[in-house]
């Protein structure tokens, strides 16, 4: 990774990032803006202020990287944030957050949590929230999705298998969203690809985003070793894909070739002809919309591909979402570490969703999925949230999604 002095020197303070930053527009404070945070990090790095003075403002950053999209100078804000957080973690480790990361990204612990959590009610318990954030909880306890009851894919129109890919199962994804993986596998098969199954762990994205860079590097190296060769690596979780595409910066040259193989599901489906396959699908009639996960839109610059696929659904009533690429406030573990701001952002997001009149919202990241689904439930469940893969599979075969 480049040094902070180099990374922060590219900000010339033009301020074009300000209105793109959800925490700036919510708080009106320069301290909660990208320009302000970069300036503070640079100042701390140069010894002009104390790192502790910077901490609360980096804690309040979503890491959504909308500022990178807005920045004409190409400032790598995501990298600045990760390195600066790593620095802060080494100065004073945040044990509660470390614990949270560990339990979220270790499937066996997460499963245990889910079971234990059911005994404690729907919200994250108050004492736990206080310890993590100093505030009352807003996020519900994670709940695992049930598996979909899909019939096997057969039929004459199913193309021959033309290749194999690796699929990132992810740490939280495999526990919380098994049906998303089912839908993913089916869509891949519909365009002639099957998944080469390998034992694999967590990609380290959550650790990197939260500045636990040593942990992130360990997990990244293990994942690189788990997926050898040159098969494409398909990822259906925006945060993971974004970090995996940046493995070179994280772990050096050994990450370079791997990173080049990483492809978001929507990119792959579009490139290999799902749009054409969709023309024969029954399609969908409910009005629907699409929420850009930050690590797709800003982290990976993937905006048009999911939309193009969704708009190819027969009979689709697609409605563009206002502020579609503004963070919903989930942001990894942000809705646990900053509940109040996360709540403001999800309400803002949900207002836009309601304004579209959509019955279905698609998105490409588990964090957004759970957080928007919670808001939908709180607002009377008039809107259903689906992963983009689920929505597309539903266009072929709606039954498993209506049960």
């Amino acid at each position: 990774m480049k040094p902070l002095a180099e990374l922060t020197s590219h900000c010339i303070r033009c301020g074009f990032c300000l209105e793109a930053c959800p925490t700036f527009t919510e708080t009106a404070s320069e301290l909660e803006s990208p320009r302000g945070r970069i300036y503070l990090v640079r100042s701390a790095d140069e010894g002009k202020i104390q790192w502790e003075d910077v901490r609360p403002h980096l804690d309040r950053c979503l890491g959504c990287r909308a500022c990178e999209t807005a920045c004409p100078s190409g400032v790598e804000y995501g990298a600045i944030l990760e390195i600066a957080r790593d620095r802060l973690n080494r100065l004073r480790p945040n044990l509660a957050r470390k614990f949270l990361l560990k339990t979220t990204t270790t499937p066996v612990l997460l499963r245990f949590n889910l079971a234990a959590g059911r005994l404690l009610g729907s919200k994250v318990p108050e004492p736990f929230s206080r310890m993590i954030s100093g505030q009352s909880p807003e996020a519900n306890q994670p709940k695992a999705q049930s598996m979909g009851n899909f019939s096997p894919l057969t039929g004459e129109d199913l193309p021959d298998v033309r290749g194999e890919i690796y699929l990132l199962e992810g740490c939280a994804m495999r526990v919380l969203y098994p049906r998303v993986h089912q839908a993913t596998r089916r869509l891949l098969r519909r365009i002639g690809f099957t998944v080469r199954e390998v034992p694999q762990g967590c990609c380290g994205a959550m650790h990197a985003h939260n500045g636990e860079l040593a942990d992130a590097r360990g997990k990244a190296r293990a994942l690189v070793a788990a997926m050898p060769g040159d098969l494409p690596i398909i990822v259906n979780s925006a945060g993971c894909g974004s970090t995996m595409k940046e493995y070179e910066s994280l772990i050096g040259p050994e990450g370079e070739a791997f990173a080049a193989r990483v492809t978001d599901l929507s990119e792959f489906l579009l490139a290999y002809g799902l749009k054409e396959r969709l023309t024969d699908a029954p399609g969908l009639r409910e009005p629907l919309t699409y929420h850009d996960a930050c690590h797709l839109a800003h982290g990976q610059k993937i905006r048009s591909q999911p939309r193009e696929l969704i708009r190819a659904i027969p009979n689709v009533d697609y409605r563009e979402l206002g502020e579609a690429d503004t963070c919903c406030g989930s942001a990894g573990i942000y809705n646990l570490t900053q509940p109040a701001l996360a709540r403001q952002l999800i309400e803002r997001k949900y207002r836009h969703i309601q304004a579209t009149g959509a019955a279905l919202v698609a998105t490409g990241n588990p964090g957004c999925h759970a957080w928007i689904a919670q808001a939908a439930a709180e607002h009377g469940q008039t809107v259903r949230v689906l992963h983009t893969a689920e929505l597309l599979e539903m266009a072929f075969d709606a039954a498993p999604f209506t049960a």
Partner: protein
Amino acid sequence: MRTRFGPQGADYAEKFARIVGAEGVLSGPAAERAYDCDAYSVDRSSPALVLLPRSTNEVREIVAACLESNIPYTARGAGTGLSGGALPALGGLVISTKKLTQILEIDLANRAMRAQCGVTNKKLSDAVRQDGLHFAPDPSSQTVSTLGGNIGENAGGPHTLKYGVTAPHVLGVTMVTPEAEVLELGGKVAGLAGSELIGLIVGSEGTLGIVTEAWVRLTVVPTHVETALIAFPSVRQATETVSEIIAGGIIPCALELIDHGILGALRAAFNLQYPEGTQAMLLVECDNGGQGVAGTTADEVRSDIRRISELCERNGAIHVRVAKDEAERAKLWEARKKGVGAMGRLAPSVVTHDGVIPRSRLPEMLDFVYAVAAKHNVGVANIFHAGDGNLHPCFYFDDRDPQQVERVVGAGEAVIRKCIELGGSVSGEHGIGVEKLDLMALMFTEDDLALQQRAKTVFNRGELCNPCKVLPNQKSCVEHRKRWRGVAW
């Protein structure tokens, strides 16, 4: 070294929290740092506190408290200013308008809108775009810069050439005077009481009080627009073409020049395409808005842009590209408007100068700018409003090196001296702030400056409201200035 004048922040935080709420008070080393400059980073000075008021009345209460306790204060919008206008020169308070972001009233029939001053320029236009209207001033920072800041600086922008700067588009203001009174000047309808004073307020850089709300004029969006990007093999051919276009009787709505110094950064940032060997580009736009300046029918607009293109080709242009649709036009304008922001690709810091000259002198002026940059050993790029002779030489450098800061200040001064020598002005649209205090005497005699000082005194008798700006040699400012310049790094 921290520069703090007036009260120690902590003593007063509680007092002001009673006005703006605890969340509206920012204090401590991080706040002092983050608000110590705007987009002009050569001069820096820390506030003791930053306040985020939610209403005109809260601003009034803050100013009253400042009067009572003798605390200097400086208003700040988005902090995108390029002359240090939001610098809290004597410490004290920064009063941010970023919580005043409501559009209060839209009157389509009278083509007027009332908004709080923290609303961004672009949001004003977005709010009435579906009605075929907009707020015409379009500074390049318009996606982030605020109405209040635009009023303070009398902001311009590329379309100033045809539609004028901010002043003629402001119908009324609500402001808090330095005596802590709420003053209404003008209003929805032109010619209301006080409207003749608005011209004094607009462009006063926040030194006559804090504007909190304004009535702005809404202008019809042109229904036909043609935009061309024209590449030249030398800067001189481009600058010579600029005066020929206007002399030829066509006033485009925008006529911008972009030179080789920044083209590479624009390609990297916005995928701006240009042929090999391009040294300068003109971005020219004609429309059928306004009254009788350019063509009024689509055909006439097309004919205007064709005549301009032909003239450019006669003058040696190597490529002419007319935007084929609105999307392409928007992309060209994004590259132009956010262009200066891309200069972080070249160096850690940029100072964007703002002199004005008669446009007929552009060729020799640009030669001079390059010579000055070479002499002072600083990098330079030009991206500016060529049509109205408003230069923006952008000197780029490393602000961590005090010698480079000095050289940049020296180069800027040489450029401004030349502007005045050519019969031009010290500033077109970025304001004087603290950046050009020393240069005011180049343009104005002592008598002129004394008169301006007296005009200021009508509104602002004390030394608390945005001190040390615009007028040089203000009491208690001279000695403090030494602390601002280049000291932060």
